[in-house]
């Protein structure tokens, strides 16, 4: 498509930019609609878990609820606290939102459908997802108020702690796939289990890592049971207490976009990405993007399920889990996996 644009009347430079702008929009617009429906799905799943109906008034089955909320937020007045550090205060939600969208650039939707097929794709996602903390910590500091500040500090410590174990978990998968490229990681899962299942998840050596990655992803995206940064009972709403209107909406969108990104990353690393679950020819007729979206939906359901059922952790327990349980375990598992690959396979030969 990029070549076609470059060869058209637009010329090589304008055509290049135009083609990429269209490709980026082709990812971002469905993503934002997906985020709106993720919020709706979240509320419906919690409602179902609590025997309620959930949103059901706006549109058929309440399907337009998120858009109505978005419109309402859009029309409200932006209030900037007098004591706030204005520049940083306004920059924080923008960073949060942008960073959540950045990671999607390297997610492969099929063998060809990937915006930037770079060599170090997984490192790129890891780098970008570690930036999300800046949005939170900056908003916490710039609000110049107690609760946001405490929320920001909590979140910074939490995200840095869990990133370490996420890094080691990613390394085990990278060792298995012997590549940092996300498309190679997806393809390495083709028929790995019994020659028929296209998933790393059912690999006995990687399954514990999948569980740990899921829990770390909950912590990384500040989802319950690890939503300490915005624990209502203690911190009002944490770092977003002072935000209103569109700035608040950007946090909200960014949060859900980050959750969906984590789901996408998990499906790429452990559930076979755009590959169908079984290595069976008729299943390949369905486009890869559909499989990926189905897997993301499944994982998102798990996220919402956890939200509806598990009580919040205490902060010291959260830190204990991150540093004293996950970090040694994942480090040990890197040794186990590399030892297995070294001595029982010919991968490193």
């Amino acid at each position: 498509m990029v070549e076609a644009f470059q060869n058209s009347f637009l010329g090589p430079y304008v055509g290049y930019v135009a083609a990429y702008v269209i490709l980026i929009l082709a990812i971002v617009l469905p993503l934002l609609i997906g985020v709106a429906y993720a919020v709706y799905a979240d509320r419906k799943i919690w409602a179902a878990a609590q025997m309620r109906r959930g949103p059901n008034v706006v549109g058929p089955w309440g399907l337009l609820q998120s858009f109505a909320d978005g419109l309402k937020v859009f029309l409200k007045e932006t209030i900037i606290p007098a004591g706030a550090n204005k520049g940083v205060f306004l920059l924080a939600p923008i960073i949060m939102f942008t960073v959540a969208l950045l990671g999607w650039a390297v997610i492969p939707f099929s063998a060809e459908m990937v915006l930037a097929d770079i060599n170090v794709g997984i490192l790129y996602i890891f780098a970008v997802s570690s930036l999300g903390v800046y949005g939170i910590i900056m908003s916490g500091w710039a609000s110049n108020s107690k609760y946001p500040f405490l929320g920001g500090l909590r979140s910074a410590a939490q995200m840095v702690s869990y990133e370490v174990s996420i890094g080691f978990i990613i390394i085990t998968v990278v060792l298995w796939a012997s590549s940092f490229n996300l498309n190679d990681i997806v393809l390495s899962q083709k028929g790995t289990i019994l020659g028929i299942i296209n998933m790393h998840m059912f690999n006995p050596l990687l399954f514990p890592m999948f569980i740990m990655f899921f829990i770390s992803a909950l912590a990384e995206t500040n989802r319950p049971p690890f939503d300490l940064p915005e624990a209502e009972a203690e911190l009002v709403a944490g770092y977003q207490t002072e935000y209103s209107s569109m700035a608040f909406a950007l946090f909200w969108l960014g949060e859900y976009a980050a959750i969906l990104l984590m789901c996408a990353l998990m499906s790429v690393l452990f559930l076979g990405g755009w590959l169908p679950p079984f290595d069976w020819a008729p299943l390949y007729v369905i486009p890869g993007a559909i499989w990926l979206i189905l897997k993301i939906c499944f994982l998102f359901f798990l996220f919402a399920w956890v939200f509806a059922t598990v009580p919040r952790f205490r902060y010291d327990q959260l830190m204990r889990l991150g540093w004293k349980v996950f970090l040694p375990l994942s480090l040990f598992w890197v040794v186990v996996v590399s030892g297995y690959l070294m001595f029982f396979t010919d991968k490193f030969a």
Partner: protein
Amino acid sequence: MLAGIILLSGTAVILSRNPVHSVLWLILAFFNAAGLFLMLGAEFLAMILVIVYVGAVAVLFLFVVMMLDIDFAKLREGFVSYLPFGLILAGVLAAELIVAAMAAVVVGSPGEPVAPVIAAAADVSNTEALGALIYTKYAYVFQASGMVLLTAMIGAIVLTHRQRSGVKRQNIGQQVARRPEDAVIITKPGVGQGVEL
């Protein structure tokens, strides 16, 4: 352009009055350094720079700087008395830089880049190239740098760790190991009777 932004944000780090703003400018400088690495084709290094420096080190910086309660008036009080020492330090650093620059000019004639340690192979990704070099030729240096970091870490822990007595701690293993039989007594007291414990 990237180098220009690095210089500008580096200047802003020093000039901004608010230490938190300084750290934010520093992060911008890190980002642009990663951009420079990318343009040199060292994508692995660029990503590691963002992950380690921006994602972890700068967060901790920001963390510490935000918690510090700095009194600027007090800081400026001692400015004059520290000035001579600061000037000497700056002079030494500048002299070192000049000497190093002179040495570089002598080694590599201008316009001709210094030869890389190994020739860049076209078919090897730079992650593999780095690994092949670090784990063979520089294996001992690599291990030694790891030891230095470990020592620093242990040192920091030893310096700051305080053993406090009389603090109640949660022992998760003990909690999980408790059985209902040890913890609960089921009784059925009659009307007007108490429970004997």
